[in-house]
């Protein structure tokens, strides 16, 4: 008895900070996934002369920004034991609401940003309240919301895109750069840092893990699991709204039919990063890795000139292989 307990104690006893760090990075999946990622990078660097360059890495960062930002929120929702299928529609609706606010206010970009974020958070709130108060599976609630938010986005202007004419808005969320790093990437990094802090270091993060790990136990420990879940949905909604701002700023306009199907990429990034679909386990950095991995695959294969059909096959196979190896003992 004491043998196992002691050896366990020894293993744990060494360095708490290292452990915490490891936990942060690891989620469910061991380091092999990181190795797989490294292998991919090396392979693409050989396969394509332009892959390994800072400008291409910025490209990848920009291309994955939307998915990464929303996936940070989705990590909260999935760890809490729920799912959000409505993020792509929320993104579109938030973008439209931001663009309309800017248009109506004659170019008030801050108002637009606030409107976009608020819209996203509101959709998340509705998702959360319906899921927790009515005890409906979030799969169905957010599937319904996927249609509702998209429908509203389309009806707002009768499917017409809304053009945004605000240089400040374009710059803040789209084309601006800080120290050469484009705004969307800066925003993504901030979101990752905040997300990791809240999930892994704050009490709210604890509650999220506990709620998804065992909702009954969490409730018995005095945790308001409904509020916890609802907040996770609100975070995700607001981040989808933020993604909507970025997309709108980059395109100089909001289109109501944008980003359809993005939810699958987002969920894939989260799961690939080691978060369990059944809740209770996961990590923000894993999610970031998952998103980057998909991004690197898309980018690398395109640079290599692989046809879009073959890309589907190769990407599918690499995802399965990477996870398979990382699951091996």
């Amino acid at each position, binding site marked *: 008895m004491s043998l196992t307990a002691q050896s366990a104690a020894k293993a744990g006893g060494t360095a708490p900070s290292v452990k915490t760090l490891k936990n942060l990075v690891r989620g469910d999946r061991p380091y092999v996934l990181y190795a797989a990622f490294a292998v991919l990078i090396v392979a693409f660097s050989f396969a394509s002369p332009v892959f390994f360059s800072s400008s291409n890495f910025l*490209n990848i960062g920009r291309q994955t920004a939307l998915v990464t930002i929303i996936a940070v929120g989705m990590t909260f929702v999935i760890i809490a034991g729920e799912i959000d299928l409505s993020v792509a529609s929320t993104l579109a609706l938030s973008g439209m609401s931001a663009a309309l606010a800017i248009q109506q206010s004659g170019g008030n970009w801050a108002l637009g940003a606030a409107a976009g974020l608020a819209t996203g958070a509101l959709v998340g709130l509705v998702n959360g309240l319906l899921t927790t108060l009515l005890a409906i599976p979030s799969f169905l609630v957010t599937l319904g919301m996927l249609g509702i938010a998209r429908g509203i986005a389309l009806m707002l202007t009768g499917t017409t895109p809304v053009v945004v004419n605000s240089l400040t808005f374009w710059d803040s969320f789209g084309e601006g750069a800080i120290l050469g790093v484009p705004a969307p990437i800066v925003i993504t990094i901030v979101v990752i840092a905040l997300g990791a802090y809240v999930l892994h270091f704050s009490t709210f993060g604890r509650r999220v893990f506990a709620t998804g790990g065992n909702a009954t136990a969490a409730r018995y420990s005095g945790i308001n699991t409904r509020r916890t879940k609802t907040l996770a949905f609100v975070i995700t909604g607001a981040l989808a709204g933020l993604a909507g701002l970025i997309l709108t700023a980059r*395109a100089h*306009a909001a289109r109501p039919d944008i980003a359809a199907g993005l939810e699958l990429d987002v969920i894939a990034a989260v799961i690939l990063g080691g978060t369990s679909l059944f809740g209770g386990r996961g990590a923000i950095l894993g999610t970031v890795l998952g998103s980057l991995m998909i991004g690197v695959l898309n980018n690398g294969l395109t640079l290599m000139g692989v046809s879009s059909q073959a890309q589907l096959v190769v990407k599918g196979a690499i995802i399965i292989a990477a996870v398979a190896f990382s699951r091996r003992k």
Partner: protein
Amino acid sequence: GCSSGTASSTESAPTIDPASVEPKGLVGLGPNGEKPALPSDVSLTAEQAAKVRAGNFKVGISMQTMDIDFAKVQTTVLKKTFEENGVQVIGITDAQWKAEKQIGDLENLIQQKPDGILGVPVDDVATAAAFSKVGKSGMKLVMIDQVPKGLKYPTDYQSSVQADGKGNGQVAAEMLASRIPDGGTMGLVNFGNDIFATNERTKGAKEWLAKNRPDIKVKETAFSDPAKAGQVGGDFVTANPDIKGLWVVWDAPALEVISALRGQGANIPVATIDLGQQLTAESAQGADIVGVGAQRLTDQAKAEANAMMLSLIGEKAPSYIAAPALAVTKSNLTDSFKIVFDSPAPADIVNACKNTSGCK
């Protein structure tokens, strides 16, 4: 991070006279090789119009999607024209780009027993059997944009109305070619799936280039998911820094590509097909959109309505009506908008245009 060496910017670019680019007449032939009629060739006489009104006809419309400007203009103009002539539109269905959904949509429309159906097929193969049921149920059928394989005129359908896809592809390529130096490279961003309408555009572009600018090297890529066109187009340029101009198969993916290029800091001119609202705005705001091969949506939709009404009263409509390509540059942007949308360009486009050199 400007990786492409393109020196030319909008200001220093040679100005193109759009009129000179527009093909004289129609480039493509009909689905069965027939010579096309022009939209202006189909109209109703007063007597025919009265007959239509007396018929109290009902029609249904099966769209491939409702989420693009094309669909909006089409349905608005169709409804308006039918209304003016006392024809009732009983339903507009949205196949959401899914062939299997359109099959069901057509069944639902037939269920409502209209006198005629107008349809934009999602594809020319998988929806063929479903469209052939329309005629079998005793209804008139007008095909928009393409005719599914195996359907026969005039038994299965009474008319087909299209934009000159090949012509549009050619127009866009020709305008873009003016910016490609001798021996330079042009990139084509195609659609990865086998769709008649987009295939025609690519064909039109390649045929024109082969014939008129054999010096230009053509590189191609394709996307399967329009939402990812930005990533595909952006990476395509990264991998092929010699590309001096991008031809994108329609406006929505072109917008994605433009936004990606902007992010990458790559100043590469773009040409595309379809003059959507947002693309117009982008161009007005100064984006380097060399040219657009636009579909004359309003003319086309009126022709569709007229062809349907002629068929409804038992007159013969031409088997193939094609709306010629409209070449659009900044210099005729707002006018073109009016032609396509049948309404003046919105204020913000007009204003943006004022601040952009060469934009009218």
